[in-house]
Structures are given as C-alpha cells and as structure tokens.
C-alpha cells in the first residue's frame, strides 16, 4: 500500500484540534503503523501557506522529497507510480504535479496543465481559465523536493513587501499563483513535470453530496482490490446488492436489504425490512423497521422512525463521457428553490415514523415531526 520509504504523514489544516481528529489520527497510526500528526494552522494559510509555515517539520530528517495531496481529493492515488516517475523522469529533484483528464467544458473549472509530450514537462499552467487551454487538469497531488521552499520563501516575502495585501492575508500563500504558474515553462530550468493518472476515478469532495459519489467509487475499488472488506449475502442473513461495507459492530436485521453502494458505520442498528441504497450511514445511527434510505447521508446518532423515507437525488454523471467530473452546483436554482441533491441528516437528528424527508438538509439535533421536501432545516 505505501511506498516503503514514506516515513511520516502530516495533516495540515485550519480545523480546530478536536477529540474526533485526535481519535482519527490515533486510529490511523495504529492501523497503518506509520507516524501521523495533525498540524493546526494559526490562521487560514491558503493552498501553500501551511506548507511554508511548517517547513521545519516537513524537512526534519532530510527527506529526499515529499508528497502533497489536497485532502478533498478522492482517487486511486498512484503513489508508487508518482514516486518512480519522480526518480526516473525528473532525476529525483524536480517537482511533479499529478494530472487527470477532464472534458473540455469541465476543464475550465480546474487548474489546466499543458504538457510537453516527450519530456512530460509542464509548459504552461493556468487556474480556471475562461477559454480552453488543456484537458489535463490539476488533480491536487504533488511531489516536491526540498528546493521548492525557495519559491515559497520568495512568495512569502513578496506578500510582506506588497502594501496592498492586508495583514490577515499576508501569511496566506496560493500554490497555483506562487509556485505552479511561475514554474511552468522553463522557470527554474524547467523543473515542473506532470504525471498523468492512467485510469481510475478522480473526484473532489466539495460538499457532502459528493461524498456519496466518492463512496461509490471507493467501494468499487474495494471490490477490485479487497473484496473481503465488503459484505456478502449469507443464507438467512440480510440481503446485499453490489458493493456494501458494513462495520463489524453494526447490527442488521436479517430481513433488511442493503446496497448497492452503502457504507454502514460502527454501532449502527438497522431494523426489520429496512432498505438502504446509495447511502452513507454514520456511527450509532438507528434505522427502524420498514424504513427506506436512498441517496442520503445519515449522520452519527440519528434515529429514523418506522416506515420513514429519507431520500435525495443522485448527482450522476453523463454515462457516455468517461472523463466527466462531478460539478459543484450552486445550492439554489434560478427560481430560488433548492437544487435536487443528496439529503443530509446532521448528527443526532431524529425523524418520526412514517415521514418523508426529500432533498433536504437537516442541521444537527433537530427532531422532525412532519415531512419535509426541498428545504434546509435550521
């Protein structure tokens, strides 16, 4: 799974250190046997400011190079292949940006990379262009050698010298404009290369709805690589369709029907005759008998009453376009109505029996005593 030379994983973010985060980090450390730490930024530092700020931590132990991945990217990370590419093609001290293919229309929403086909150097980089530049987009993954910090230092200093930038924003560095754009072409002797992902899915998770899509993709990966992680039909047990992952501590009634594309978390209880499809059910949720959960995310500790129906709309891609990407639609359409999307129940939401919650976002700890459609429940 991991390249044997990866020594440490650093998580850098602006989220407050929390019990959940600490627990997550501990669990992952134990599971994968590799040191992992969460480093909290003191202010939002942009796409590169955190890397600059924590440079001492990153460079401790003199790594030859380091990976950087945006945490909202879901894909079959070609970690091994990127590392080899970095050694063989860039001579071990260049910079690699991970690229993936998008259709011409959708590429405009991402960072676009123009590749020199024989050397794989990046000839040009532009973030969210208005006109078509390239259909290779920035997939949010990089390998940098320690030299990168020269460029980051330069960007940081430039920020401070620029009187026009506000105090608060001075420490924030944008990777695209400070590093990628200037390095493209022959900047610094042409050290920026692009490694194109061969195949496999790639998606960003910008909202909870995308999580359902990513869930589907990861489950299909499991099916390929680790089918033993997935639930199977057992005689006399609950019925399973397609890829379904069930935490061992979940209790599922034998007459329930799950899948395809369902994740069931720890301590979840699913009652008789319940149906769950295209959904993520987080820890300790209770789904009572005869309920139906479709295209939804059920938060931790939710309780869904008997015969309740929790339903969202899938954000499905054009099946004829192999490189189509999930887009970030705005929350509301032109009529001011909520765009159809995944239904989300926040933590601790309870839904009384026999109600329907359709295309609705429910904030945590609400108790729903009547049906809701196309709304945000605050």
């Amino acid at each position, binding site marked *: 799974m991991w390249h044997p030379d990866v020594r440490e994983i650093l998580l850098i973010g602006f989220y407050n250190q929390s019990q959940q985060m600490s627990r997550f980090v501990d669990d992952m450390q134990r599971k994968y046997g590799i040191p992992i730490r969460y480093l909290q930024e003191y202010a939002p530092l942009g796409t590169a400011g955190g890397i600059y700020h924590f440079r001492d931590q990153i460079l401790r132990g003199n790594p030859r190079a380091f990976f950087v991945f945006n945490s909202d990217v879901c894909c079959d990370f070609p970690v091994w292949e990127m590392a080899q590419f970095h050694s063989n093609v860039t001579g071990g001290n260049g910079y690699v940006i991970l690229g993936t293919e998008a259709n011409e229309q959708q590429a405009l929403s991402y960072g676009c990379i123009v590749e020199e086909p024989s050397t794989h150097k990046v000839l040009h980089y532009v973030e969210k262009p208005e006109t078509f530049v390239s259909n290779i987009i920035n997939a949010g993954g990089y390998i940098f050698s320690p030299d990168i910090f020269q460029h980051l230092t330069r960007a940081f200093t430039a920020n401070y010298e620029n009187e026009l930038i506000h105090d608060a924003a001075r420490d924030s560095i944008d990777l695209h404009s400070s590093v990628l754009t200037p390095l493209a072409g022959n900047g610094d002797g042409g050290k920026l290369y692009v490694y194109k992902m061969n195949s496999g899915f790639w998606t960003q998770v910008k909202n909870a709805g995308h999580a359902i899509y990513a869930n589907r993709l990861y489950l299909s990966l499991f099916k390929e690589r680790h089918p033993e992680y997935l639930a199977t039909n057992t005689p006399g047990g609950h019925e399973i369709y397609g890829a379904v992952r069930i935490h061992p501590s979940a209790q599922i009634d034998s007459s329930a029907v799950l899948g395809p594309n369902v994740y069931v978390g720890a301590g979840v209880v699913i009652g008789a*005759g*319940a149906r769950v499809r295209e959904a993520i059910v987080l820890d300790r949720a209770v789904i009572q008998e*005869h309920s*139906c959960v479709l295209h939804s995310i059920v938060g931790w500790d939710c309780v869904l009453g008997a015969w309740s*129906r929790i339903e969202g709309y899938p954000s499905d891609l054009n099946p004829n376009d192999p490189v189509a990407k999930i887009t970030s639609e705005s929350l509301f359409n032109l009529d001011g109505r909520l765009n159809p999307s995944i239904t989300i129940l926040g933590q601790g939401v309870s839904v009384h029996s026999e109600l329907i919650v359709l295309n609705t976002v429910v904030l945590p700890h609400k108790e729903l005593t009547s049906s809701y459609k196309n709304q945000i429940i605050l």
Partner: protein
Amino acid sequence: MYLFPRQLGITITLSHEQEPLGTAGPLGLAREILEKDAEPFFVLNSDVICSYPFKKMLELHHSHGKEGTIVVTKVEEPSKYGVVVYNPTSGQIDRFVEKPKIFVSNKINAGIYIFSPTVLKRIQVKFMSLEKEVFPFMAQDGQLFAFDLEGFWMDIGQPKDFLRGMALYLSHVRQTSPERLAEGDSFVGNVLVDPSAKIGQGCRIGPSVVIGPNVIIEDGVCLSSSTVLRGARICSHAWVQSSIIGWQSVVGKWVRMESVSVLGEDVIIQDELYVNGARILPHKNITVSSPDPQIIM
C-alpha cells in the same frame, strides 16, 4: 351481473344511452320499464354515498302523495351545489337556487329522488336536465317535496371526496353493523376486508381502509385512508396513505404513496419509488418517482 339478481332476489335491467341524455332523458329512455305499473320508483345518482334510508323515504313520499320527493342534505358549503328552498313543516319545495352567492339555505339536492311514473310526462328522450328543466316546473305545480336526510352524505365524484365518503361510510358501518369490520393486532380504526383478501405479518392497516376481493397485502405494509380494489397487490414494507389502488395493480416494495394518488387498472409501481398525488392511467408501468402531483398518461 347474473350473480347479483340471484343473490338479492331482484331483476336488473341495463338501459344504455347511445348518446348523452343528461339527467332526465335516460328516464324517458327507460319509460317502458318504469311505467310497467303505477308504483313510484327511486332514482339514485351513482356518485353519491349515504345511509340510503329507503323505507323512510318511501313513507314520506306516500304521505304527501305528490309526484316527486327529493332527498336533501345539509352541507358546509352550499354554494358549491344547487340549494333547495322548502317549507320546513310541510316539506313542499318552493324553488331551487344554483350556486348562490349569498346564503339562502344550507340544504342541497343530494342526488336521490323518488318519482311517480306520471313524472315521465314531463320528460322526452333527448338531452334534458332534471334540475333545470323538470324540477322547477314540478315545484311550481306544488308537486315536489323534500326529504331531510339524516346522517352522512358525500358526493364521491372526485378522488379526495371518494376517500372522505369511504371514511364516513365506514363510521356508519361501525355504528350499525360493527361485526363487518376487521379486528386484530394489525388493524386500527374502521377497516373493511373482503374474506378472500390475504394480509401479511407485521402490517398496520387503517384507519379508514377498504380492501377488496383477492387483494394481497404483503408483510410490513402500512396502509391508511385508502381503498384497494379487487386483485391488487401491495408489496412488503410499502407505506400507502390517502390513495386509491386500482384493480390488479401492484405497488412495489418500500413504495411510499400519498396525497390522493389514484392508480387505474393494472398499474405497476416499481420498488422503492415515491408517488405523491399522482393520477396514473391504466396499464402503466411506473419506473421513476413522481414527487409532485401530476397525471401520468
């Protein structure tokens, strides 16, 4: 058709209009049968429901001895209908007012009449309206009387009203012959189940449900305020409220149906769909949800 006459000990004759004859013309068409003897006959509009107090109606008709008796009933919104103005002591009808703008009376024509065959002199076999072309003249001639209906009455022409009428009828059954209603853990409120129907485990049926012959209700179904017609099947874990399920239709597993959805004959709703206020014509196979009220043709 041949079963009923034998069961009920009566003769049934069908009189079929080849062209629309309104509310009066068809009586002229059936003149030969109606004039067979001098006995009065009932005229019942088939889109109403009430307790049908035939004996009391006939007694009143004989007591005044005139040409016609109209059953009247009290309603909350008389302006939706035709209002009947009559003398409360004698019962003689003075006049009718169609959809009055200001309050005249809260008694309306309940669509149930008794006529003596002499009334047929006022009717020709062409498109004629009882309410507009016959009753006003009968009232002028002092030949029309009102029978004040007690108990429930409902115009069941619209699906929503049909379901209300069904609920009223079931309450009436609860009062008059409660042994006809279903009892047991699965049943709530007033529920009428044909003996040939099958109901599964863990269901909750009612209140206000009528289940027809050879219907199959599978396990874990929640059904309320609905009518399920002959031969239909409601599959496991479905939740159905305020709906009319047509003959031979199939409602799939985990389907949620509500808001006066109406399924015509032989409609199939696939599993896990949401049907909200849909009116679905016969023989359709529904494969996607219908979350907003619509007619599916």
